[in-house]
């Protein structure tokens, strides 16, 4: 699967990582709902780290992303608009 970190770049991850990413996604939604800034920051950082653990896409690769994570400097306020319901990834 291909994951983009907005404003940063795209990474290619094993499809097996999708479940982990989805799990974090749901936890972030819960943290955002609770207005827990520290917890949100911690989980979102984990999501970013997971994405960055993949291999970066080459400059000549034109691929559509399966998942687009918001920019790394996302504020809790902005997150409230992105991480709602099922989060970035359904399910």
């Amino acid at each position, binding site marked *: 699967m291909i994951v*983009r970190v*907005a*404003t940063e*770049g795209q990474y290619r991850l094993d499809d097996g990582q999708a479940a982990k990413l989805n799990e974090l*996604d749901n936890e972030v939604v819960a943290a955002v709902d609770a207005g827990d800034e520290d917890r949100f920051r911690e989980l979102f950082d984990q999501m970013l780290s997971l994405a960055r653990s993949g291999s970066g896409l080459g*400059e*000549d*690769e*034109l*691929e*559509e*992303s*399966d*998942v*687009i*994570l*918001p*920019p790394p*400097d996302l504020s809790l306020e902005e997150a409230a608009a*992105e*991480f*709602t*319901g*099922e*989060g*970035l*990834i*359904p399910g």
Partner: protein
Amino acid sequence: MAGMAGRMSTVIKAKISKLLDRAEDPGETLDYSYEKQMELLQNVKKGVADVVTSKKRLQMQSQKLEQQVVKLDTQARQALSAGNEDLARAALERKTLAQSELQNLDPQIKELEAQQDQLTENEKKLRAKLEAFRTKKEVIKAQYSAAEAQVQISEAATGVGEEMADVGMAMQRAMDKTENMRARAQAVDELEKAGTFEDLTQLDSGGNDDIDRQLKELTSSSDVDAELAKMKAEVGPGSGGGPALEAGSGGGEKAGEGP
């Protein structure tokens, strides 16, 4: 899809399929979308230039403030040497304010530098992607067989479109941040315009009671008191002769909490 991934790619896909529907010749569509993307690349370059301009402006202000701090420190010492404590206090109040403005500017200049680096990096990446798109476009055009070409075009255009949207977002965020800094730069300009950091001997006769009152509110009087006491010990009242200037003590002190 509830999240951003859904929204962003839906918009891109909608735009691209509209483009493809309209086109009679896929080759033409490709050329057209490449041209469009190149235009957008120019906007990114302009965005980088804007950030650089803002950064330069803040840097200039910062230099000016540093000079004011040194100047006001000198004036305070001169005033103390001449036994004019009120004038010395006024100079120190202005110095405290200038120092706290300086402390505000510093992280902002650093932030703009980071923005500039990131945008430059984004621009470079986008240019590479566009180059890849251009190459691919020629390949697709050469092997043009309707159905297959349509799929390939859609894929390439979506890929480059997503990149474009992402750079657009990076630009927007950089612009938002720059906007906040402009407001700060504006505030410093206004303080200057009001004569806050002007030569105190001129101010004295000009009757700037208003500025003095505002300054007292803005600066922490305990900081000013402490510095005044320190300076008194160094200079000594009415020591005569030239002012005892301690070079280097001007910019180094902490301005405290600031306004």
